[in-house]
Every structure is written in structure tokens, then in C-alpha cells.
């Protein structure tokens, strides 16, 4: 028995020692969650829970929204999106666009430097964009650069890097030639795949330069000073050209994934802002006045697999769409301030005259159980009689499940359809099932990449990579091709309204709601900018005493 006690004793000592180490490493910075002004002297600290660990801190490789938020603080491109997701010139002081809208000449600001003080030149842009296109790097978002002439050819291995039409004319001038007129190109240059990267760091360690706060060199409002134990700390970048606009002394990102934990930390004051809110708690949190509903450019919808009976019948698709009470769904089930969707393209996209694309397009349908019943009868299923068994496919999530349960019940009540089954699949399996078209009705969501209806409409091209409904319409395809080559903003928007008309007439999808991003923010947090196409910008954020 002595041996046993000895082992125990050793074990205990080991634990104490290990914990000791933990203490030392944990105390070298300011702990998160301390109230501003307390203990830190006059330091102004803001703690935001970004919600997850980054998949990668390489802006060219990253794809997610949390990463976009991290990069927004550390990097800046030729343009930067403002709070309305509209691009404003940033590192570029001015831009000349050729008559045919194909050649953009950017003039950089004077005296731009990296966070380490080295000069930032037009050549950095050229090299960085070419790096993002390098097939060896194999970046997911390389296609965001395909608008540049020669880019797609180089990235797909059919062209040379020298034919990519981006060129540094001198230290301060960058010239870009596009494949076709691209009205949203200024939004694109604000995107992370278009960020300049500090080349010497990449050359030194091409794989791992972005793994440590020590080796990441940025050019944005903040510098990453530490990244360990599920937490990132930023301090203002003194070398940033607009450093005076930065008010915070320290910005902390925590990486708590669990929504309930996040909320508890917010309520105990350990964090100042959350990245989401658990749906069922929203009614209670609304009363605190700290619930903020941020815009988020996206639509939640159901896809009908139009090749599978009975969904090949347009009347069935319409009946199912009209029989969903979206108002009840968003007020009772999702509860996060989502907007019921009576069309496909979400609100928030400005047209040429500044008016909203959605407002101009209007609603395409409403909640109308009577018409739905008629349509179903026309399709040959009066009161749901003889309606074949249909399946709603969704990926694992409590919210998707609740929405599907509610819709199942609505179809039962409004249409008399009894045999709707719900199938829940693990993410990878679900994506595969959707891609193979091995489903009847599937839940889906689409978040816009940039502020233009095209980012929502081009996916319904016949045989498009994301067209899981197998929808195919010659008029639609033709119009899409025309829009792609069009330069005139007014006609372009008109044609996109026509595209949406076709989509909503054929109804291969059943829009349910427009996304929002409900978050909790302490009332003393001011000046942050939430960008609808992804990310929160803390450049001008501050804490009100």
C-alpha cells in the first residue's frame, strides 16, 4: 500500500507544479474582463468574444467571419468598408478608372509603413495578390481575384504569373486590369484576399509565419501582441497612417464557443461584447437594453429538389411556400430579430440611386394558407390527401431542428400534409447529401460575399456548383450571362430584379427569413462598426466612462 500512497503523493505534487506554471504564464498580461478604469489605471480595454479560434491567421487562406474580424483589426487594403458596408478609400489616396471601366490605377498614400516600420509599397500589393493566386498556395478564396485579367488562368495552371494584370508602376502606383467591368471592384479590394502581406516574413517561413504574434506583421489599426490560451490581445499600431483615429488602449478577443458560457461571461462582466446570443434567452435579454441586433447580409431558405416528385410540380412548391407563417416563425422560434423573407435577396443592398434593392423589388408572396390549399388541390392533393411522404433535411443544430419542427406542424395544420419527416445529418454528410441531390427539401443559408445582389443570384445558374435544387431555366442563364458583362448600374439592377422575378416564379427555393446577428453589448461600448458582409471593425471603438 505504501507504493500506492507514494504514487498518489507524486501525482499531487505534479499537479501542484503544473498549476504553478499555469499561474505564471497566465499572469503576464492583464486578465480579461476587468472593468475599464479598474486596476489598469487609465487604460481603456475592450473585450470581445470572437467566438472561435481562427482556422488560420493568413488573410489569403482564411475563409470565416471570425477570421475576418481578426484581420480587420490587423490589416488594411486599398479600401475599407464603412459601417454600411460601402467601400471607402484606405491605403489608396485616390483611384483612376479608365473609360471602359477595365483599368484601375490606385495611388497610395504617402509614407505608408508596416507595423514594424518598414515601408509599404505598391509592389507589396502586386506580390501579395500574385501569392494569393499561386496554385501552390491553394487558397480557397483565390476566385475572389478572378476578376483580374489573367488571374484565373494562373490559378488554374493554364497561364503564367507574368500574365496576371496587376502591376506596380512605381512605389506608390498600382495598376490593375480587369477581365470585365466589375462595379463592385472597390468592395473587393477591401476584402481580405486583397490585403497586402509583408513579404520578408512569408519568405522566411512560408508555412508558419502567421502562427505566432511575434512573426505576424500587419498594417492595420492594431497590432497583435499575444495569442495564447484561447485569447488574443491587440494594442494600437503607432505606425498606422490613421493612428489618431484609434482610441482603445487594448483590445482583447476571447474565443469562447459555447453560447451559454459566453452569455454568462457577459453577465459577470468578463467580456464586454458577445458574438451571438442563445435564441431562447432573447426575450429576457431584450429587457436589459444591451441586446443589439446587427445586420447580416444573408438569407435562410429551404431548397426544393425540383427533380423529385412531388416537388417537380411548381404548384406544390408554391403551396408549401405560402403555407409557412414566417411572422410567427421569427417572433416565436428564431426570436433574434430576423426578418420574415417574402423574397430571396435580403435587404441592405443599395442600388445606383442609393435606394434599397429589396424595397424596390418588394414582396413576392405572403402567408396565405387559403391559396396554398387551392394550389395543392390543383396539384392533385386536395387537403393533403395522397400527398407522398416528403423529408426535410437539415444539419445538426438546435435552431434548424426547431424551425423544421415548426414548419412541419404548419404544413400539417394548413395543408393537411401528415407525412413530413425530419432528417438531421452531421455537417459533412449533409453537405454531401445536398451536393448529390439525394434529398427532397433541405435547409440552407447563403451569406453574401459582397454588397451586390449578384452574390445571391449567380448560384442558380444551371449546373452551378451551389445550385443544389437542380433548378434549370434558360432565360435565367441567359440573363445572368448578360448581367456579368454589363457595366451600366441602372440596367444591371433592373436585370437582377428580373432574375429574382424568375426565381420567385419558379420557386426552386423557399426563402424563410433574412439573417441578423443578435449580440450583447455593454452600454458603455461605443464606436464599433459591424459590417453586414462579415466582421466587426474596432478601429474607432471606445469605452465611455
Amino acid at each position, binding site marked *: 500500500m505504501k507504493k500506492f500512497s507514494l504514487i498518489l503523493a507524486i501525482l499531487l505534487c505534479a499537479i501542484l507544479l503544473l498549476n504553478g506554471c499555469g499561474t505564471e504564464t*497566465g499572469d503576464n498580461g492583464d486578465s480579461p474582463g476587468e472593468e475599464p478604469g479598474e486596476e489598469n489605471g487609465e487604460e481603456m480595454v475592450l473585450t470581445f468574444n470572437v467566438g472561435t479560434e481562427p482556422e488560420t491567421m493568413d488573410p489569403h487562406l482564411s475563409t470565416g467571419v471570425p477570421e475576418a474580424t481578426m484581420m480587420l483589426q490587423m490589416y488594411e487594403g486599398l479600401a475599407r468598408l464603412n459601417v454600411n458596408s460601402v467601400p471607402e478609400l484606405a491605403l489608396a489616396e485616390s483611384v483612376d478608372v479608365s473609360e471602359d471601366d477595365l483599368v484601375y490605377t490606385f495611388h497610395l498614400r504617402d509614407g505608408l509603413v508596416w507595423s514594424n516600420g518598414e515601408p509599404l509599397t505598391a509592389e507589396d500589393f502586386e506580390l501579395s495578390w500574385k501569392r494569393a493566386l499561386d496554385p501552390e498556395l491553394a487558397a480557397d478564396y483565390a476566385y475572389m481575384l478572378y476578376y483580374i485579367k489573367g488571374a484565373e488562368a494562373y490559378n488554374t495552371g493554364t497561364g503564367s504569373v507574368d500574365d496576371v494584370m496587376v502591376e506596380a508602376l512605381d512605389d506608390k502606383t498600382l495598376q490593375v486590369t480587369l477581365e470585365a467591368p466589375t462595379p463592385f471592384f472597390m468592395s473587393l479590394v477591401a476584402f481580405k484576399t486583397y490585403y497586402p502581406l509583408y513579404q520578408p516574413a512569408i519568405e522566411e517561413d512560408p508555412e508558419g509565419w502567421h502562427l505566432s504574434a511575434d512573426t505576424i506583421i500587419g498594417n492595420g489599426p492594431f497590432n497583435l501582441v499575444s495569442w495564447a490560451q484561447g485569447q488574443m490581445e491587440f494594442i494600437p499600431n503607432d505606425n498606422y497612417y490613421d493612428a489618431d483615429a484609434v482610441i482603445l488602449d487594448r483590445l482583447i478577443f476571447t474565443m469562447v464557443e459555447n453560447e451559454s458560457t459566453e452569455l454568462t461571461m457577459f453577465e459577470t462582466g468578463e467580456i464586454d461584447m458577445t458574438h451571438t446570443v442563445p435564441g431562447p434567452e432573447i426575450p429576457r435579454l431584450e429587457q436589459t437594453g444591451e441586446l443589439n441586433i446587427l445586420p447580416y447580409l444573408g438569407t435562410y431558405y429551404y431548397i426544393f429538389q425540383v427533380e423529385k416528385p412531388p416537388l417537380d410540380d411548381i404548384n406544390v412548391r408554391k403551396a408549401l411556400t405560402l403555407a409557412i407563417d414566417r411572422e410567427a416563425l421569427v417572433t416565436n422560434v428564431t426570436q433574434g430579430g430576423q426578418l420574415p423573407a417574402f423574397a430571396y435577396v435580403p435587404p441592405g443592398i443599395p442600388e445606383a440611386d442609393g435606394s434599397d434593392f429589396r424595397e424596390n423589388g418588394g414582396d413576392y408572396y405572403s402567408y396565405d394558407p387559403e391559396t396554398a390549399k387551392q394550389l395543392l388541390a390543383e396539384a392533385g392533393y386536395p387537403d393533403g390527401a395522397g400527398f407522398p411522404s416528403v423529408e426535410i433535411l437539415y444539419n445538426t443544430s438546435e435552431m434548424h431542428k426547431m424551425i423544421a419542427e415548426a414548419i412541419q406542424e404548419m404544413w400539417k395544420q394548413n395543408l393537411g400534409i401528415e407525412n413530413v419527416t425530419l432528417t438531421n445529418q452531421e455537417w459533412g454528410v449533409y453537405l454531401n447529401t445536398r451536393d448529390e441531390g439525394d434529398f427532397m427539401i433541405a435547409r440552407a443559408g447563403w451569406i453574401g460575399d459582397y454588397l451586390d445582389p449578384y452574390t445571391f443570384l449567380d448560384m442558380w445558374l444551371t449546373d452551378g456548383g451551389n445550385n443544389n435544387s437542380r433548378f434549370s431555366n434558360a432565360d435565367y442563364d441567359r440573363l445572368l450571362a448578360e448581367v456579368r458583362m454589363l457595366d451600366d448600374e441602372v440596367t444591371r439592377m433592373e436585370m437582377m430584379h428580373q432574375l429574382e422575378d424568375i426565381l420567385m416564379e419558379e420557386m426552386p427555393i423557399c426563402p424563410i427569413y433574412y439573417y441578423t446577428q443578435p449580440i450583447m453589448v455593454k452600454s458603455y461600448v461605443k464606436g464599433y462598426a459591424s459590417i453586414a458582409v462579415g466582421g466587426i471593425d474596432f478601429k474607432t471603438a471606445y469605452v465611455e466612462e
Partner: protein
Amino acid sequence: MLGYLIRRIFSALFAILIVITVTFIFMHAIPGGPFQSEKAIPPAIKANIEARYKLDQPLHIQYVDYLSHVVRGDLGPSFKYRGQTVNGIIAERFPVSMQLGLMTFAIAIIAGVGAGIIAALYQGRIPDYVTMFFSTIGISVPSFILGTLLMYFLAFKWGLLPAAMWGTPQHVIMPAMALAGLPTAFIARLTRSSMLDVLNQDYMRTALAKGLPRWRIIWVHAVKNAIIPVITYSGPLLAAILTGSFIVENIFAIPGLGKHFVTSIYNRDYTVILGLTIFYSILLIGLNMFVDFAYTLVDPRIKLTGGKE
């Protein structure tokens, strides 16, 4: 004994090879791949990525290639966490999980064995019912409920501890309690029942009849023999809690290894799945080997080397 040890190590290596092979087949058999997302990547870009990670090669070549790296101790790059290696992920995160796991293990063994002994000695009396009541609650409340409740009361209601995150000793307390709940309760019940088995044995009665001091009998004979099932359970328990718990790490936002055991499968991050499986199986098989040797220390009559013929 040396022959046995060699045979044991050899069979362990063979077992690990089977684990790798089966896992490799399974993960390629299930639908989905590492570079799939809600937004389909253009096929040309997908081809670039697959070429980069040699996923465009036939499976048997990938398999042989992977094994040749594993033999050299290289578990390969992660597909999802681009730029990171599996070795790097384990090196960064295992210490966190291990620290929490050892703490949990110590609580479970000390509290569990202690409670079990007390319950057995007072069989059918108040201390027995009280410990068994709590240990039943302990095994019927899973860590995700226990963790949430602990956080609600200790962090939110009473403000005694930080709700989540990692770095200071205070951060260890709640997750360790949440993790230790079930094993403590189970060990207590296991100890109690095997203690009772031992206490009723003839040699115990003899020892008591000889008038040896009661505590000495309990310590030297009863606990020693009753500890065998606890030792058995400790092997897989340690392997599991040292490698972290997905649920508890998620609730308490702990940057440990447990998360990757689950997310790597959701992400179809092939190298991470395999690397962690190998890591875990080495730990498990090693600890089970250690458990077998511990048997012979506790009860020298136990023979591992051969059958009874």
C-alpha cells in the same frame, strides 16, 4: 517476464497498426471531405488544394505515405487549420488537457475510493446511504449539466470563480469538478461493492477473529484487494481524461485537446483524426499495460504470463 514484455509491446504495436488502418478506411468511407463547405469551391481551386495535400493520389499510396511519416514521428499538416501541424496541435494543447486531467483524476481517486471505503464499512447505515445517494446523483448527472449548473451558481450567482477560460488555478476548479463527477461516483460505487466482496471473504473473518487491529486489516487486506477494479477502470479513464473532454472544454472555453477529437471528424481533417487516434491509442494501450503490471504489484498471485495448464 522479459519475453512477456516484448510480446506485449509487439502486440501493442500491431494493435495500433490495426487502429490506424481501420480509422483510415472509415474516414475515407464516410461522405464529405476536408475541403467541403456551404459555399462550393470552384473545381479548379479544389484540385489545387487536393494536389497540395496529395489527396489526389490513390488511397493506398496515401496510406503508405502516411505510415512512412508516422514511423518517423511526423503526423502531417492539418487540412483545416492551415499552417499548423498535427504534432504542433498536440504539443500546444496536450499540456492543458493533461493538467486538467491529472487534477480530475486525483479528485476522482481520492474522493471516490474514500467514499467507497466509508460506505462499505458502514454498510446499511446512514453514511452508506448518504454516499450512495450522492454517487448515484453523480453518475446520473452528466458533465454537461453538472458543468452548466456549477457555472450558474459558482460564477454567476455567487461570483466566486471566473466563468470560463484558462490560465490561473481558479480556472481549473469548475471544469475539474464537472469532469470528476461521474468517475468519482463510479469509483465510489465500485470500491464499495468490491470492498464488501472482500470483507465477507473467509480470510477477513479469520484476520478479525485473530484480533488484529481493525484499521490495519481494512487497509492491508480489504482496500488492497478492493482496489483491483478501480485500477482496471483507471487505465481507460486516464487515457480519456488526459486527452481532454470535448464537452467540458466547450463549456469552460479551455484550449485543450478534446475539442479536436470531435471537430477533426466534423471537419474531415484526415491527418488530425488519424494523429489524435494514434496518440490516444498509444496512451490507452500503454496505460492498460501499466494497469496489468499494477495488478501484479497489488496481488502478487496474479499471473499475466501464461495460461493455467
